[in-house]
């Protein structure tokens, strides 16, 4: 956790007993907040007695983005509708994190464009052949032929769904 600490541009000269004149007031208001500095934040309050032994350990909260989308600049989210990938743990309404920057490899689950439509399938590369394999025995694999307009859009890196949706 971080807090912002303000730098005072000049030391404040207001101390008890001094008389205030105009300059003092101007300086008093003139705190430069534009130059902020990041400082680690410690949880326990200062009080008499022993300091908390936990203060030696900085507090960080878990950043879930590191798991879902380690590369946020090239990651996009999409939602699926259909049951063709159910055996790959992609149920109806699942949200997929798709990394566009990754080069698709054999066996990756990919978002691809096939003749102008998006689909999500497992990419099978066998020699010169390219197959798009559904993960549901109800559907047959699609052979990608050279006359098709085919392009891998991105590689699925995370599948998210609500357990109630399965």
């Amino acid at each position, binding site marked *: 956790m971080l807090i912002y600490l*303000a730098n005072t541009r000049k030391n404040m000269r207001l101390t008890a007993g001094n008389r205030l004149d105009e300059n003092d007031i101007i300086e008093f*208001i*003139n*705190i*430069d*907040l*534009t130059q902020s500095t990041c400082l680690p934040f410690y949880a326990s309050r200062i009080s008499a007695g022993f300091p908390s032994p936990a203060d030696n350990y900085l507090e960080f909260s878990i950043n879930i983005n590191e798991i879902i989308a380690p590369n946020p*600049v*090239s990651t*996009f*989210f*999409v*939602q*699926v*509708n*259909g*049951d*063709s*990938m159910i055996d790959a743990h*992609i149920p109806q309404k699942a*949200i997929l994190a798709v990394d*566009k*920057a990754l080069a698709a490899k054999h066996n990756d689950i990919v*978002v691809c*464009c096939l003749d*102008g*439509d*998006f*689909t*999500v*399938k497992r990419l099978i590369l066998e020699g010169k052949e390219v197959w798009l394999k*559904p993960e549901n025995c109800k559907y047959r694999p699609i052979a990608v032929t050279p006359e098709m*307009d085919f*392009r891998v*859009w991105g590689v699925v890196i995370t599948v998210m769904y609500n357990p109630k949706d399965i």
Partner: protein
Amino acid sequence: MKPLFALVDCNNFYVSCERLFRPDLGKKPVVVLSNNDGCIISRSDEAKALGIKMGAPLFLVHDLLKKEGVHIFSSNYELYGDLSFRVTETLRQFTPQIEIYSIDESFLDLTKYFFLNLKIYAENLRNTVRKNTGIPVSVGISYTKTLAKIANRLAKKSEKAGGVLVLTDERHIDAALKRTAIEDVWGVGRQYAKFFRASGIYTAHDLKNAQDAWIQKHGTVVMRRTVQELRGISCLDIELMQPDKKGICTSRSFGKSVTNLGALQEAIAIYASSCAKKLRKQKSCAKVLKVFVKTNKYADTLQYFNSKEIILPTASNSDLELVKYATKALNEIYKEGYLYKKAGVIVTELMPESNVQLNLLDTTDHLKHNNLMAAIDEITRKLGKNAVTIAQQGTKESKDWHPIKEYVSPCYTTRLKDILTIHI
């Protein structure tokens, strides 16, 4: 060390953004319209080939677009802004020395990379942006920003260049300048181009070789600088930090003309609140607020334009304060019986939040306002825009004056409810 600049420019940026989520439009003509669906502001190459001009008003070309099956989009700045951010973040992986010049253009300072093979560097950069974001870019590299602009333009135009042009060889620079018409030089406006042509200067190359005495006599400071830049002497540095804005304006044309005060008040409240949010984002307060209203100058109706400036008792960036004074200003200039087409709020005399001088006669509890605004900003961050608004901003149902966005695409990357659905 001789400076070296790259200009990275996204090709047909708005169209490219729309196509990213519409693979069916890959080779089809596509155009994007300005706010309020007024004019064409971005065209795919296919649309350009149909002779559709940049800036053409929709109503003039509507029949042509329909006949040719051109796909039309209203502008979706939420989507373009997010993709623009992704593009510049990708560029930052190459160098921290980057100036975001506009939503689709960035200058990179490559001075320290002179020893690299610049063509390979630029191709790598281009491919990485394409891979990360799906947005095609062109890269121009040369000794000055003005020359980098010219290189970029030619990189885009020439098939052979493949989106990348490095101009570091004198002969290549001269050849490029000869191919660049005077009006296509960065910083040369239409009026100036006319003047240059009348004086026998037709290309960038002619301007580069114009006599110093002549430039001194006829050129402004800016023009002299441009000539220097064409000669390979860098006069414009990379601006890493964007200076805070000196004034902020929120104004919009109405989708439908507005006559009654209530609707205008709503619009003005929304614009004032938007100004307040922009102020808080850059940690400034405004001392002066101005409201203007105007009728449609192209329409054959009674014309009226007026504006009113109010000096705030204490500089502020609070929605409540700005909306209050904006409404007050509007009430003073509103006149019945006119068809209003546009209104806006401008705030000026900005100062850092921390430097605000309190006014002894001002009874507003500014600390309370600050806390409230911080809470509103937090809610906005969590729940999205307009989760909490000032009542004067009205409800969704009441806004028939809202800008027209007939062909707007979903905000695929910024709103969870808008993400792309794929049928599998």
